[in-house]
């Protein structure tokens, strides 16, 4: 358990998703998973589609809050700010919608992977990546034992 906590804000274009004191934040940057605690060296990093793990101030060692994050960037200063297009807590994820979206994108991709517009192919792949993250997060995330 960390001695110091750090203020975390998660911002999306339309709302402030989260604000609170946390001990530890783990996000997926473009270079892989990275964790941040209070007193981290300042920085600004781009995020990949991935999972967000936070341990709130005073929470137990295995007490995590998990959310699905669809890219964005993180700014680490005296406080930490995550700016993203979309983010969902694991408990708010609608699995049915995720699976149907994923199935649709996969069907489309099997037919159009070679012939389709490269932009559309990329979009379909992003949809699949996002659905995978969401379904992972909904079932507890990669760090789930």
């Amino acid at each position: 358990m960390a001695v110091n906590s750090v203020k975390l804000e998660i911002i999306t274009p339309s709302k402030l998703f989260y604000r609170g004191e946390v001990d530890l934040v783990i996000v997926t940057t473009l270079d892989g998973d990275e964790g941040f605690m209070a007193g981290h060296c300042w920085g600004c990093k781009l995020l990949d589609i991935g999972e967000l793990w936070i341990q709130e101030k005073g929470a137990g060692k295995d007490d995590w809050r998990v959310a699905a994050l669809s890219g964005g960037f993180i700014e680490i200063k005296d406080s930490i700010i995550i700016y993203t297009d979309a983010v969902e807590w694991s408990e708010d994820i609608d699995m049915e919608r995720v699976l149907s979206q994923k199935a649709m994108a996969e069907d489309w991709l099997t037919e159009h992977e070679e012939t389709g517009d490269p932009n559309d192919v990329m979009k379909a792949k992003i949809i699949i990546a996002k659905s995978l993250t969401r379904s992972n997060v909904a079932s507890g995330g990669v760090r789930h034992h």
Partner: protein
Amino acid sequence: MASESIQDIKRRIRSVTSTEHITNAMKLVSAGKLRKAKAIYEKTNANSHYLTNTIREMFNTNTGDIPQEYLAGNREIKTTCYIICTSSRGLCGGFNNNILKNAQADIDDDPEKPVIVAIGSKGKEYFEKRGFEVHSSYLSPPESISFLESKALSEPIIEMYRNEEIDEVVLIYTAFISSMEQEVRNVTLLPFEIEADPEFERSYNQMEYEPSVEEVFNYLVPKYVETMIYSAVVESATCEHAARRMAMENATDNAREMLEGLNLTYNRARQSAITDEIIEIVAGSEAQN
């Protein structure tokens, strides 16, 4: 003559009363929508400020590493893209007119053919009628726009800028000052105009950029454009409701004033009809005696 004009006045009173009911109801609806829109606007506004600050800070601490593509002065400005935020519904006073007048003046000053992106059907109709080509548009009521929808709108614009099909992106929208006051604003989104601020407080903490300053900057600027467009749409929707509320309040007041006058004339006409009848009866009985 008297009875006919009494009928006419009565009909007018009825019609003005129903107009007053409608405008009053619309006023109340707009007031409710304004409150809702204002709440969203306040949040997005804080967001775009935050993004701008991050970019400014990056620029001031890493001037050398910033890619020039998005910055002012890197190429000659020929084609300009105008993004014009109007409403999709009428009855909001001078709201659309102010915006369109401003946009038209800007476009008239521009010797090159403009690329027009219309948000709200009023703007689209206006420019199509005048023979302009509207490049793309968003026509549903702007207050319900989601970030994804606005992203779909702004992505092609950024793409065109990158491909040098357009050299400047100007956003024309109505800024919200207060419920009583709104103002048309022109903002140049791209190229990004920024100057190194000598008074900028350099922090002793060196920022670490990952994967690189260049890539972070290339990510942030389009993000900034997207966020600005989104917040402009939200802000302009807030203004639309404020303008409509004002317009409807004025209309209701006018209708009430008219009703007062009409009631007076109606009573006067009715009184003179009664007086006429009494005179006739008195004159008749006097003739009999």
